[in-house]
Every structure is written in C-alpha cells, then in structure tokens.
C-alpha cells in the first residue's frame, strides 16, 4: 500500500527539481539551436568526424545525415492524396511460474482504414497461445523471460502488418498509385535482446529484412512512429561539428556537451506539419541492415495542428532508406500520417490498434478461468501458487483510512 501522506514533501521537492532542470535546459537548448544554425552544413569533414566517432566508440549513436544540412526543414507540397493506413500493435501475457499452468500469450490488434472510403475500417484481433515445452523453455531449461516474449511479439506484429499490406495491395489489383502506409508504435529499427549471440542477431536481421522486402515488393511504406522520443542522435552529431578531427576521441564523444537534451527539444522549432531532414542512426544494427539493403532512416515531425513551439508535438518517424529514393511517396506518407494525427496529435490508427491488442488484467483473469475449467475437464486441478493466491487476496483488501 502506498502511503501518499509520506510522499507529499518529496513530491513537492521533486516538482521544484523538475522546474530547475527545465530552466537549465532552456539555456543549453538555446545554445544547441544556435549551434545547429551555425554548423548546419554537411560536408566531408563532418562525415569524417562521424566515421571517427563510430570507430572510437562502438556505443556512440550519432546521426548520419542524408541531406546537405543538419537543419533541413520540409513541408510537403500539394494537397494530400487519400491513402490507405494500416496499423498493428501487440500485447501479451508473460510466462508466470505462479500461474495455473505455464504458458504465454500474444495478441495482435490491427486496423485498416481507407481515407476516402465510406464505411468503417477493418479491425482484427488475433491471439496466439504458446504452451508446448519447446515454446516455453530455452535450451538450458529456463522458463522464457519477458525479453524473449517481447521479441516474439515484435516479430508477430511486423509479420501481421506485412501480410495485411500485401493483401491490401493485391485487393487493389496491384495498382501502385494509391499510397499505403503501414504503421507500428515505436521504432522501426530492429531491436534484439541484449544477450543475443551474433548468430541470433544475424538470423533476426535476415528475418526482419525479409519482412521489409515484402513491404517493398508491395510498394507499401512501413513506418515506425515514436511519440515523445528520447533519442539524441542529431545532437551527438552536432557535438562533433565544432571540434577538429583529432579531437574526436572516445572520451570527448562520451562527454558530449548536450547530454541532457534530446533531439525532440532541438527540433521544437519545426512548424506544425513540418519535418526535419533525413538521418540514419549510426548503430551497429543499422549497419547490418544497410548490408541487406534495408537501412532504417528517420526524421522528426511536428505532429501538432497548432502553431508555436509551445504547442509543438515533435515525434520521430522511421522508414526504410529505400523510401528516401521516392520523395513524392515519402511526402504522401508524411501527409497521410499527419492527417491521421489531426484529432489528438497522435495517430488514431495506433490508438485503435493498441485498443484492439491490449490484454487487460480482467481479460487475463477470464482467460485463466477458461484454462482452469479445461484443466478440470481433463482431471487436472488448476492451482495457482500460494504466493500468487496471497497476492490476489491482499490486492483486493479494502484501503485502510488513517
């Protein structure tokens, strides 16, 4: 039980600290934005510094600019064209050794919306249950953990999205004039478990590249949408702009001047609906993807409908690099997603995909009751652990009033 009365003073102190930090950030941000204006030009020297920073520190995550300036801004021209939007999101029940039986569950929700069509969008929700020993235990006999399940969920979300994308293009008779955008919540750049081996990473990269090739074959724009991004790749590159090549050392790049800022703040001056230039993260994973022809690039977009930096809603959008070779298609995708953010400054599609995917605590309880009944029919009493039972009982205890 959380005794709020014991936290009142700390909450107040915390509020003051946040305000102080915000003030300090403001001065630093002004300096960074001035730097961006002053050192915006992308030349060979900057590229050499970026290459050196990568070589000096493998963990350095800068931004490799695709354009001629770090400070590019772009507003699509021409009226938006109706597009088809597809979004998928996933939810899960993690394996739990205290539950009635070992299992895990994935649920992928998806929505397909044709922007100019009458009628409701197509919505789907597809659960998948995993209970075989080969699903549940790794080679050392340990129960699979949340990191593994998250990886499986990401894969299923992306496969679902690719499948719907291909089906939609096929339903159009292969007509590629209509833009189709496939949205996922979060980065598009592949994520792998920290302890993954080189072989596992290589397999995952190949698998991911196969899915991206499906999108490319269907001429569909896969897009990762990161709301309130914490990334600072462009700032890392900006920190290199004012130092000599010899000064690009491991210590120097690790002690970056703008460590306390994010790219979101740096680009808070983007106008409503405007996007930044295109960049590629210098991560090793992106290097592996580049070798498959599917390097991931990103830009920042102001998803707000209101003018002014105070109302800016800067998000990070990630797409495969092959989209950059079709600027008109990139513009159409940009416009389609921005239009989808009109109501709440967040894609309606992603909000709905999440709603379709989410497995609530009540859903889980009902599902476990269903499993319990099935076990009983087969002569196995469903018993949760004593610890789980105690947690269940104490969680529902009435609140004590002091």
């Amino acid at each position, binding site marked *: 039980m959380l005794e709020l009365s014991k936290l009142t003073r700390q909450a107040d102190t915390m509020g003051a600290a946040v305000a102080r930090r915000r003030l300090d950030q403001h001065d630093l941000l002004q300096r960074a934005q001035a730097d961006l204006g002053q050192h915006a030009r992308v030349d060979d020297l900057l590229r050499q510094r970026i290459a050196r920073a990568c070589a000096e520190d493998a963990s350095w995550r800068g931004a490799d600019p695709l354009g001629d300036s770090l400070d590019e801004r772009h507003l699509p021209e021409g009226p938006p064209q109706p597009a088809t939007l597809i979004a998928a999101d996933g939810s899960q029940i993690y394996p739990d050794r205290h539950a009635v039986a070992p299992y895990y569950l994935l649920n992928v929700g998806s929505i397909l919306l044709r922007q100019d069509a009458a009628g409701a*969008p197509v919505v789907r929700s597809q659960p998948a249950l995993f209970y075989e020993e080969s699903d549940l235990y790794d080679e050392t006999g340990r129960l699979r953990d949340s990191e593994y399940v998250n990886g499986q969920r990401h894969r299923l979300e992306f496969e679902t999205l690719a499948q719907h994308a291909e089906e939609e293009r096929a339903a159009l008779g292969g007509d590629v004039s209509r833009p189709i955008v496939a949205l996922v919540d979060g980065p598009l750049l592949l994520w792998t478990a920290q302890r993954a081996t080189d072989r596992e990473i290589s397999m995952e990269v190949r698998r991911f590249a196969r899915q991206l090739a499906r999108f490319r074959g269907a001429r569909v724009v896969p897009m990762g949408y990161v709301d309130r991004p914490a990334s600072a790749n462009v700032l890392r590159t900006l920190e290199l702009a004012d130092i000599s090549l010899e000064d690009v050392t491991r210590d120097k790049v690790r002690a970056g001047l703008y460590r306390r800022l994010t790219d979101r703040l740096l680009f808070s001056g983007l106008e409503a609906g405007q996007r930044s230039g295109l960049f590629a993260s210098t991560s090793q994973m992106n290097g592996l993807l580049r070798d498959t022809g599917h390097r991931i690039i990103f830009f920042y977009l102001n998803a707000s409908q209101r003018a002014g930096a105070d109302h800016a809603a800067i998000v990070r959008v990630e797409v495969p690099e092959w989209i950059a070779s079709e600027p008109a298609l990139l513009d159409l995708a940009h416009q389609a997603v921005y239009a989808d953010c009109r109501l709440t400054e967040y894609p309606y599609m992603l909000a709905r995909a999440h709603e379709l995917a989410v497995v609530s605590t009540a859903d889980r309880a009902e599902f476990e009751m269903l499993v319990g009944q099935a076990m009983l029919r087969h002569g196995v009493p469903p018993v949760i652990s004593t610890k789980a039972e105690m947690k269940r009982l104490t969680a529902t205890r009435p609140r004590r009033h002091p």
Partner: protein
Amino acid sequence: MGDVGIMVGRVLRATTANFSVGCRGLFTIADRLIPEFGGLVKALGRDGAVIYGLTYNVTIDDDAFVRQLVAAGLEDATYIEDQRQNRQVPVVADILTVGGQDAGQELSYRLPAQPPGPLDEIYACNAAEIVRFTLRNDWLRTVLAAKDTPSDQLITASLSAAAAARPLGQREAYLVAAGRELARQMALDLGRLDGILGQLYDDIEEKTRER
C-alpha cells in the same frame, strides 16, 4: 428451435424483476427499431422456459477516448463509423420482467422463479407473440408498480405497440379494454390515470395522422 425472431442482444446482468441486455448497437431491422422503448422481448432459457419483458430504458455509454475525439472535432466519416461499428462499447437495454412461461406450462404474468442467466439470448417478440401476451391485461399491474422506471410512458408505448400488432379493426376495441383495466387499477389515482390516457390518446392521434 425454429425461427425465434430478431435478436436484441445478450443478458449482461439480471434480477428477478428486471435484466439488462448488451446490444451491438441501435438498428432498424425489417422496419423495427431494435432495441425500442416499450418493446416486448423474450429471454430464451436453456430449459425451454421463456421470460417476457418490456424495454424501459436504453443507455449508450461513452468512454474517455470518444469524449476526447468529440472534443477535438470528430467529423471524419471513417472515424465515426469506426467508433459506431467497431468499438466494443455496448448499447445497454434495461428490461422490466412482466411474465414468463415454463416449458409445457401456461403463460403466466407472475415474476419467474429465476431470472434469465448471464449471456442468455434476448429476442424481440413478433406481432403474434405480442398479441398473445397482451390478450390479458394482468401485466399492466406489474408495470404500474415498478420502481425506478418511467412506468406511465412505458404503459403508453407498450399499449400502442400491442394495438399496432393487431389487425386495424381490432385496435380500438383493444385500447378501450386496456383503458378500462387501467381505470380499474388506478381508481384512487385519477390524476395519473388521466395523464396516461392523455398520452395514449395523443399517440393514437399521431399514428392516425401518419397513416
């Protein structure tokens, strides 16, 4: 089981005296509004028992997501249809139990021994079933005595529907008989009786003009 009629929804919760039905939305099926205030519905129990009830309230709930969309100026037809057709926010119809019939037994206007079960199917009664149920006026007493329901308007709507279910030539006679029964049951509350009969008269006048 043969043709049981138009499905209204499934039971969400129930007491002996009333029950609530989760519906997929507001529909017009074969010129009938589903669910409809004053409409006679039936719950089909698994043991062959039937429970009859009158729809006395229809609720459309909102949620935080819808509220935010509306406040932001929701106008796009595709989003509106998504909210209407795909969101899992049920329309809830509240039903006042007015009678029942156990398997192989006569129709009864008493409250049933058990309420309908969770997720039991609820169907709109067809004209023949409405006529059969309203052959006697015993159900009026249950409606008049019901608490927390708009009883007077419910009686008006239900009598009007019962009259409409009959051949044209029988409607007036039916309503006159029902009016007499109401007068008998409400002899000590003439003000309320006058209100109900007035509403009923207005309703019949309106329907006559429509024709």
